């Protein structure tokens, strides 16, 4: 396949960026999207240009590093995949592909397609944990049975990889799905219930401080989430927060 790429290039956080057009040839449909980017970068290095910076690491859809906005959608046109799992067979010969960083005030661009997502870390630091110290005699793992459905729901919420696609897809750049997934994971477990009120209040406060937009329930986040995190989690957080704030 031969493709035209329009890629956002930005030297660093302080400079203005712009979209630059590149051509790549002989792309195999079996390549992953990032392998196509590798081809482009090898080409640029050979020419003596600077390669395009983008975040990536595990390349199997679990670390959450890769985060490209491809043709107007986070992680591109396929569903249920991260950028690294997107394959070139989803595109046609001669296509033009627009590649941009995830855009949000809370995700400032560091370079080219690399953005700073540390806001997510800070939201979790505000309360995304259960306060338990490490000791050799924490109570036995089977001492509190947990309803399978709840354990499963908690697991599904916990599969969030923190990539930021929810923020990127949202017209309001809201981080509700991310925050809600973490709140849900813990509030669904008896171990997490004890601190549930404090947790949800603090995490939402931090989320607001970071400059994310407000949720208007468009549902774009759920559709674009590579892990299919459900909107139910947002409703659960709304409930938890309401409960905590009237107490």
């Amino acid at each position, binding site marked *: 396949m031969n493709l035209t790429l*329009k890629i*956002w290039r930005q030297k660093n956080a302080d400079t203005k960026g712009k*979209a630059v057009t590149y051509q790549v040839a002989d792309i195999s449909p079996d390549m992953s999207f990032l392998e196509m980017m590798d081809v482009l970068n090898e080409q640029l290095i050979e020419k003596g240009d600077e390669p395009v910076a983008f975040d990536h690491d595990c390349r199997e859809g679990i670390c959450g590093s890769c985060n490209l*906005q491809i*043709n*107007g*959608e986070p992680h591109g*046109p396929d569903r249920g995949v991260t950028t690294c799992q997107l394959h070139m067979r989803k595109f046609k010969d001669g296509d033009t592909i*627009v590649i*941009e960083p995830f*855009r*949000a*005030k*809370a995700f400032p*661009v560091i370079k080219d397609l690399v953005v700073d997502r540390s806001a997510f870390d800070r939201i979790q630091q505000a309360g995304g944990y259960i306060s338990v110290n490490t000791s050799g005699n924490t109570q036995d793992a089977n001492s509190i049975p947990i309803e399978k459905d709840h354990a499963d729901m908690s697991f599904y919420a916990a599969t969030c990889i923190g990539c930021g696609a929810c923020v990127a*897809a949202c*017209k*309001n*750049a*809201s981080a509700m799905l991310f925050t809600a997934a973490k709140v849900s994971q813990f509030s669904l477990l008896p171990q997490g219930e004890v601190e549930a009120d404090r947790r949800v*209040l603090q995490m*939402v*406060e931090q*989320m*607001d401080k970071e*400059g*994310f*937009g*407000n*949720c*208007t*329930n*468009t*549902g*774009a986040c759920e*559709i*674009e989430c590579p892990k299919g995190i459900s*909107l*139910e989690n*947002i*409703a*659960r*957080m*709304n*409930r*938890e*927060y*309401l409960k*905590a*704030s*009237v*107490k």
Partner: protein
Amino acid sequence: MAKSALLKSSLAKKYWMAFTGLFLCLFLVGHLFGNLQLLIPVGEGARDQFNEYALFMTTNPAVKVLSYLTYLSIIFHAIDGILLTINNRKARPQGYVSFKPSTNSMWSSRNMGILGTVILAFIIVHMAMFWGQMKFGGLDDTIYTTANGEQVEDLYTLTIKTFQDAQYGLLWAIAYAVAMIAIAFHLSHGFSSGFQSLGINHPKYNGFIRKFGLAFAILIPLAFAVIPFYIHFVLEKI
């Protein structure tokens, strides 16, 4: 903490939006029942019934409380909406070169602000035309004498005449219908969204909420919109 959480946080804004929005849905139902009385065939009975109803709605203390709540809700809903929109714009100062939200969300859900603005404009015009006229007079030739002898504005005649007007009646009806379409779209997202914001989301009753919300969004505005056309085309001229 808890107090400011209910006033200032982003979630609080959602709760108030949802709460006022769903309250306004109830108001719509009440308003519709009043309006449906305009479908009664022309005559003394129809005029009496509608005007007595209008009087009741403007003087009964309980209804008065409700109506002030409604005004407050509209104002709050609008201001909250404007604040949300401004805030949300700020959350993405640099836009995308290519952005395809149509692949992941409904048009109405993304344009609640525009729809809301249309609706707000409609409400202002609507209030000025009917409620304002009635409250502050100006209906020179249409005076209605109530059962206990009080003289009030004849809202019934005003309404019917507005839509039966040979020159502008149809235009008014069409404008009215446009506003109703805006309301329909607004509701098609807003109704179920309100439940989601208040944390009511469960696989068991989500389907019902969505379907009921959709039915509500179509049927209520449709019923409203039918009335002016009925008055214009079907109802006997007065």
